[in-house]
């Protein structure tokens, strides 16, 4: 894909990539600060720092601690999770179009959550995440199976198409459930758009363990992913037990994507864009691609979330909508440049 830039950059060595990560982390920290400062009540940065740690009960510290901090943390974690999940899926399927949003994994998680809200009334928040994980897993398995159907071998395009079909199916089922009950519709429609508004610490704390576990588990996976991304035969030739690695990787994707959907609703395109940028910057070694994808994903979502708050003030745009408006043109660009004939 970006082979020319990749070979040039590989010579530059480890130091440069570390430097890149450090710069990225610094930028993310700045964005984190901005995310805390910007909103319907602007808070200057010095006051942000004070308000975060003071327990004086002032309006500023209240807003910061109960509203803005969980929201900014959610943005970072959701973005990082989706970025890494996308990178893993792209390596696993050797498909540059793979990502939790496009392949319907997010839609599957959304469907099960809406079904849970409808059937159980208002389920405890802890179960949200479990239902999301279940939906993500089933949808992921389905789309992979569908992508291999039909004449000819599995191709990137076929998988993307299978994802689109599956997504339209899952979305129409979600719509069906929402039509059955207006109260459910009213309470979850903002969530189904993908949003970080109103996420409090409690919800964050419930969903975070899944994503953090997924991120941790992805670390030992990185080296195997590099081998896998070169093809099944190469991976096997290098002594890899591809079947086990794939299963493990799929589990990690479910944890990451399911957790992210449970917290923020289905946010598309982060998982598509972040890994591409990561490979462009860090090359083909997934030990570098994964942390870069996590950082870039986090940056994307936090920027998108700030934009969502600022764009149409005082209205809030769901961050999922912002991400789609940024990400879909990128997808079209990829599609155009991939299909040459």
């Amino acid at each position, binding site marked *: 894909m970006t082979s020319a830039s990749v070979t040039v950059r590989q010579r530059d060595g480890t130091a440069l990539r570390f430097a890149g990560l450090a710069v990225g982390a610094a930028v993310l920290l700045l964005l984190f600060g901005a995310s805390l400062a910007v909103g319907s009540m602007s808070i200057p940065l010095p006051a942000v720092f004070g308000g975060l740690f003071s327990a004086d009960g002032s309006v500023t510290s209240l807003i910061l601690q109960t509203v803005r901090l969980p929201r900014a943390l959610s943005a970072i974690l959701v973005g990082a999770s989706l970025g890494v999940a996308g990178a893993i899926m792209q390596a696993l399927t050797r498909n540059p179009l793979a990502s939790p949003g496009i392949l319907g994994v997010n839609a599957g998680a959304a469907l099960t959550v809406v079904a849970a809200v409808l059937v159980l009334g208002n389920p405890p928040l802890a179960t949200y995440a479990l239902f999301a994980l279940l939906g993500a897993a089933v949808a992921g398995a389905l789309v992979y199976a*569908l992508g291999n159907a039909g004449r000819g071998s599995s191709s990137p395009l076929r998988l993307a198409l299978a994802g689109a079909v599956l997504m339209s*199916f899952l979305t129409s089922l979600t719509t069906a459930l929402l039509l059955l009950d207006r109260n459910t519709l009213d309470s979850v429609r903002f969530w189904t758009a993908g949003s970080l508004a109103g996420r409090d610490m409690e919800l964050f704390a419930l969903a975070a363990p899944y994503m953090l576990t997924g991120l941790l588990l992805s670390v030992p996976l990185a080296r195997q992913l590099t081998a896998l991304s070169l093809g099944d035969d190469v991976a096997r030739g290098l002594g890899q037990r591809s079947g086990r690695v794939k299963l493990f990787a799929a589990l990690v994707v479910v944890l990451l994507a399911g957790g992210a959907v449970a917290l923020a609703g289905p946010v598309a395109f982060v998982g598509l864009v972040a890994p591409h940028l990561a490979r462009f910057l860090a090359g083909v070694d997934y030990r570098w691609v994964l942390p870069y994808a996590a950082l870039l994903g986090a940056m994307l979502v936090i920027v998108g979330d700030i934009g969502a708050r600022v764009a149409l003030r005082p209205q809030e745009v769901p961050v999922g909508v912002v991400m789609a408006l940024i990400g879909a043109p990128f997808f*079209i660009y990829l*599609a*155009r440049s991939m299909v040459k004939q």
Partner: protein
Amino acid sequence: MTRGTTSAGGAWFVLRLGSLSWRVSRRAMPVAGILLILIVATTVVSVGQGEYRIGPLDVVRATLGLETGNPDHALVVREFRLPRIVLATLVGAALALSGAVLQGITGNPLAEPGVLGINQGAGLAAVALLTLAPATSGALLPWVALAGGLLAALLIYLLAWNRGAAAIRLLLVGIGLGAIATSLTTFLIVFGEVLEVQRALVWLSGSVYGRTWEHVRMLALWMLVLVPPVLLGARSLNILSMGDAAARGLGQRVELARGSLIVVAVALASGAVAVAGTVAFAGLVAPHAARRLVGPAFEALLPVSALFGALLLLVADLVGRTVIAPSQLPVGLVTAVIGAPYLLYLLWRQRSA
């Protein structure tokens, strides 16, 4: 006008009119006949069902304008139920034809009008009208939706053009643009009044609820113009489905044939979406079922697909009206629920084959 010339195998019956000719599959004719009978039977049953039940004989009499001894029958049958049921039939046929053409062109079993962005474009236009200007709606809605669908298709074609419009690039650009339209629709839904949003969702999931003869007339005219070129394209489709190289070798002007077939398929689906909203999976499932019944030759596949699509929507509408009566499920949701397991079955069959 017609002259039957049977070839050695006798599998085809050829109609000729001047320089035009049309092959009719001997195998397809009984299948088409059975489907037609099923369609008529289902229609009669479906018209009789509802809060106000009417016996099948009275349904037929009322439809033909004969006296049934109950003045309500004529009103219920001819003004309330027949329009929506006839419309469901037409929508099913249009979507199935469109799907059959798109699957033939792309060689992909999962291609359907919905993934070309038509549904999403039409959906965005319709939801914008329903939520931003709820007062104006009504008669304007199909036209706005039609414009939205065609505009989306045009944009996709332009964006996918790169010295020729490879089918797969069309599909991918369609997915991308579809995502943009969907996210804008979501945006409108999030901020709309919940009542209007519910109306919009019903439209988005495809429904023939409350449709009148006006809608039927609109779609029927649309199809009258567009169905003949699709049927005449059967031979080109046979050749195109062998792949570009083979098609060129056989003297087919690939880009021209593909481009014009796509235009017709998109226009057909847009018409259906305009009157009934985005009905999922009908365009995907019907051609597969038809292929299993009569094989891959498009002369037989196209008409049988259309009939099967019509039957599918008729049944889906009947189920949607009766299964949770007195509430109704939008027909598009029923087709989705029927379509998905079929898709899985298809998948399972191909894996084990």
